[in-house]
């Protein structure tokens, strides 16, 4: 009896801690999402008030070649951002995990410091560095490597640079933690059994740190699909899903179509996460 009472007490105490979180989650995440979902399924009246008629027209309206192209633009940019982040972030995370204590602390600082200032400010910093009469062109000219200033801004590369710059810590941290957790005696065992260093890396280190790689890819890819302001700031001239949604909501004032676009974007990212989880990926603190 006493024990049962105690357990009920525990459950009550747990509920006490969970309830405020659940309330916050419902208020800040679930309700807005439901509102967006609802908006995407109804028709707007003459005076911008929402009508109550259920319709799928908002989604049907999305079936246009130019809209599809916009989604593809976003997916392509997100994919490239993920790839470049992986190619730079994994070696970085690896070195960070294998470095001595002082180097490790220094590298970790380098990863974390950017979080202290606004991403927007840092991107404007890049813009200044890259502009036609900016420091990078000055250095290249000084070294005699170029005659004329290169127009970095506005190029696809500059957008990609900004994207990678903003997202790469999301790749470095899980990769670092995966390498850090790995037992390097296993690599020694592979070497001992006849593997050259690269072979040992491919046979042992890579598969054993794959969870970190996959987690990093999801953490970079998912937000990358939705980001559009970086492209705008760098003058990329790309039309991304984010631009499209913003224009629908703020310029065209077609909240229904905008909501439908948002729902499609959410479904895409949820799909990526679902595939990731189904293939045995680690819980990223979501579900």
């Amino acid at each position: 009896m006493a024990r049962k009472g105690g357990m009920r007490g525990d459950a009550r105490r747990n509920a006490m801690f969970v309830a405020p979180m659940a309330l916050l989650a419902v208020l800040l995440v679930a309700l807005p999402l439901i509102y967006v979902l609802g908006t995407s399924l109804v028709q707007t009246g003459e005076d911008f008030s929402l009508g109550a008629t259920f319709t799928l027209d908002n989604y049907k309206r999305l079936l246009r070649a130019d809209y599809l192209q916009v989604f593809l633009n976003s997916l392509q940019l997100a994919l490239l951002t993920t790839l470049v982040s992986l190619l730079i972030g994994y070696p970085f995370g690896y070195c960070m995990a294998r470095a001595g204590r002082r180097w490790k602390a220094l590298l970790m600082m380098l990863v974390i410091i950017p979080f202290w200032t606004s991403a927007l400010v840092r991107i404007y910093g890049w813009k200044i560095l890259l502009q036609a009469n900016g420091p990078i062109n000055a250095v290249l000219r000084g070294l005699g490597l170029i005659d004329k200033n290169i127009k970095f801004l506005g190029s696809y590369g500059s957008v990609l640079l900004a994207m990678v710059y903003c997202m790469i810590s999301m790749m470095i941290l899980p990769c670092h933690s995966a390498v850090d957790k790995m037992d390097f005696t296993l690599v020694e065992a592979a070497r001992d059994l006849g593997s050259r260093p690269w072979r040992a890396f491919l046979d042992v280190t890579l598969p054993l740190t794959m969870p970190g790689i996959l987690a990093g890819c999801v953490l970079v890819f998912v937000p990358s699909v939705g980001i559009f302001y970086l492209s705008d700031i760098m003058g990329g001239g790309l039309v991304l899903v984010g631009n499209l949604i913003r224009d629908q909501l703020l310029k065209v004032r077609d909240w229904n179509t905008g909501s439908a676009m948002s729902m499609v974007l959410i479904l895409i990212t949820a799909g990526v996460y679902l595939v990731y989880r189904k293939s045995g990926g680690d819980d990223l603190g979501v579900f």
Partner: protein
Amino acid sequence: MDEAMAEVLLSLRHISKNFGEGDVLQDVSLDVERGEFVTLLGASGCGKTTTLRIISGLETPDAGEVILNGQDMTDLPPESRPVNTVFQSYALFPHMNVEKNVAYGLRVRGMDKRAQAARVREMLELVQMSEYAGRMPAQLSGGQRQRIAIARALAPQPQLLLLDEPLGALDLQLRRQMQIELKRLQKKLGITFIYITHDQEEAINMSDRIAVMRGGRFEQLGTPEEIYDHPATRYVAQFIGRSTIFTGTVRSANGYSAVIENENGRFTVDSAHAEIREGEICDVCVRTERMRASRTPVEGFDLPATVREARYAGGHVLTYVTTRGGVEAVAEGVERMCDAPAAGDTVYLHWNPAQAAVIGGASHGA
């Protein structure tokens, strides 16, 4: 001479290594013969694992040479040495099943698939793990992982197998069983083993020769019997077996036996193995199981002691005594508690002079 040279499989010549915090190994030299079972025995931090890692190539010595089959391997990477290691933590690849683990050394060396499969089957049979081929390491018990680690290391047919405290994580009973199996395996395959342990009983049971290590040096290198019966230093005497050490002055020595005296009294030792002269001071080691305590004085001995306690230890009684000079000693030889002396009794310690060892005697000097 050529014949003797041909027998040597591995030579360590004047190996030194330091990791920046004082020497880990200082001028270590060792010759291991083909088919031999050599154990490096010592407390943790004595340099035994570093020695093993230098042989496997996972560590490079600062000075000295590693020679296998007459070839200098000092600068070869681990993958180029015909040497495999059984790691202390087993280091099985957690993402590969038993079969793939055992096949790994064959696969990276490019053996064809069919030969690989045959060899893996043979290895799993050897360690009696055939029915576990499809299991993942996480599904195996400690003893089973141990067997797979051994099979994996043996599969590429190394000339030398290095074992780093392979039984350290097993419970006592399994450990004893694996000691016997490992020894049988080594005899059957005729492979040279270099084995690391901090367990002196294990070392004595299994080895052809033991190197007792301390502070990055070999304290003594010899057969288990030599090391047990004729320890070269006080450290070896105390590290291996239980014993009492008496320090005293040699009163008379005639080449066969010597009489030694100290504040505890007077006693006799066989000096055939030791070069000792009258007037010298020397340490004498008497193993607990060879120490006797009688109620009456014995010829050649005058070592009276007071009994502190007599305790039954299964099959024999351990008599704990304190000598006149305050040395605490343990004697055996009484089988039943009813024959044991009582606390406070005076007894006379003695032993067979041939079974006491003068530490640092000539037998191991050369």
